[in-house]
C-alpha cells in the first residue's frame, strides 16, 4: 500500500494546514497513548512524572510530532529519509513496532477531535496510510 501522488498532496496540505497546532497535537496524542494504552508507559519508566498532562509527556509528544513533520518533508522517500530515526528506534530505543500502530491511532483521534470539519474520510485514509508507511520506515533497521 503506497501513497498515490494525489494522496501525497493531501497529506502535505493537511499537515501544513494544522502545523500551527502541531505541538498540541503531539502532546495530546502522547498523553492519550499512555492513558488509553497503559502498557506503553513501560518505555518511559525513567521519567519521574508520568502524568498525561505533565511536562515530560508534553515535551516528548512535541518531539515525536516533530518527527512526523520531518517524515512529511521526506514523503517521497520515507525509508531513506528516516534512516537515522530508524536506527535510533531499532538499536537504541527498541520500541516494539506494534506501538507505532497504536500511536498512529492516537494521532488520528486527536486530529479528528481538533479538526472535525477538515478531517474528512478522504483525508483520514491518506493520513492513515502515511502514518503506516512512516511506521514501516521506522521499522526498517529492526532486523
Amino acid at each position, binding site marked *: 500500500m503506497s501513497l498515490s501522488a494525489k494522496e501525497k498532496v493531501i497529506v502535505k496540505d493537511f499537515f501544513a494546514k494544522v502545523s500551527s497546532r502541531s505541538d498540541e497535537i503531539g502532546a495530546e496524542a502522547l*498523553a*492519550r497513548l499512555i*492513558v*488509553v494504552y497503559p502498557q506503553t508507559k513501560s518505555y518511559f519508566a525513567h521519567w519521574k512524572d508520568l502524568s*498525561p498532562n505533565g511536562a515530560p509527556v508534553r515535551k516528548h509528544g512535541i518531539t515525536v510530532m516533530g518527527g512526523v513533520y520531518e517524515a512529511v518533508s521526506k514523503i517521497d522517500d520515507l525509508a531513506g529519509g528516516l534512516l537515522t530515526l530508524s536506527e535510533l528506534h531499532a538499536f537504541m530505543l527498541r520500541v516494539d513496532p506494534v506501538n507505532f500502530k497504536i500511536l498512529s*491511532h492516537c494521532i*488520528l*483521534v*486527536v486530529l*479528528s*477531535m*481538533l479538526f*472535525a470539519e477538515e*478531517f*474528512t*474520510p*478522504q483525508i*483520514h*485514509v491518506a493520513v*492513515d496510510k502515511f502514518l503506516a508507511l512512516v511506521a514501516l520506515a521506522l521499522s526498517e533497521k529492526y532486523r
Partner: protein
Amino acid sequence: MVEWTDFERATIQSVFEKMDYDDVGPAALSRCLVVYPWTQRYFGNFGNLYNAAAIQGNPMVAAHGKTVLHGLDRAVKNMDDIKATYAELSVLHSEKLRVDPDNFRLLADCLTIVVAARMGADFTADVQGAFQKFLAVVVSSLGRQYH
C-alpha cells in the same frame, strides 16, 4: 467477567445518551468503507460505492450504519454480560454473514474517530479509554462464536 469502574459505566451511558445515531451511524460505516476499502466486499448489493462521495451519499450505507450502531444498544444496557448478549449475533456474523472478525475492530476504530469529532474536547483521554475498552469487549464478543 469484565470489571467496569463507576467512571467507565457512567461514561458509556453518557456517550451513547448524547449520541445522534442518525448522524454517527452512517458517518462511522461510510468512513470505514472509505478508509478500509476492502470492507466493501460485504456490501456488493449496496449499489454505487465507487468513490468516497458515492459511499457517503449512499442511502443503503446510511441505513445500515444506523442499524449497526443501534446494535450496540444491547451492550450499553447489559455491560455486565456483553459476551452472552452477543452470542447470537456472533453466530449470525460467522455462519450467515461470514464477516472476518477483524472488520469489527476496523469499524470500532472508525466509530471512535467519529465520536471524537462530534464530542471534541469532551472526548478526553479517560473518556477515550472507557469508550475503546467498551468497544474492545463488544468486538471480542462478536468474534467469540467463530470456529
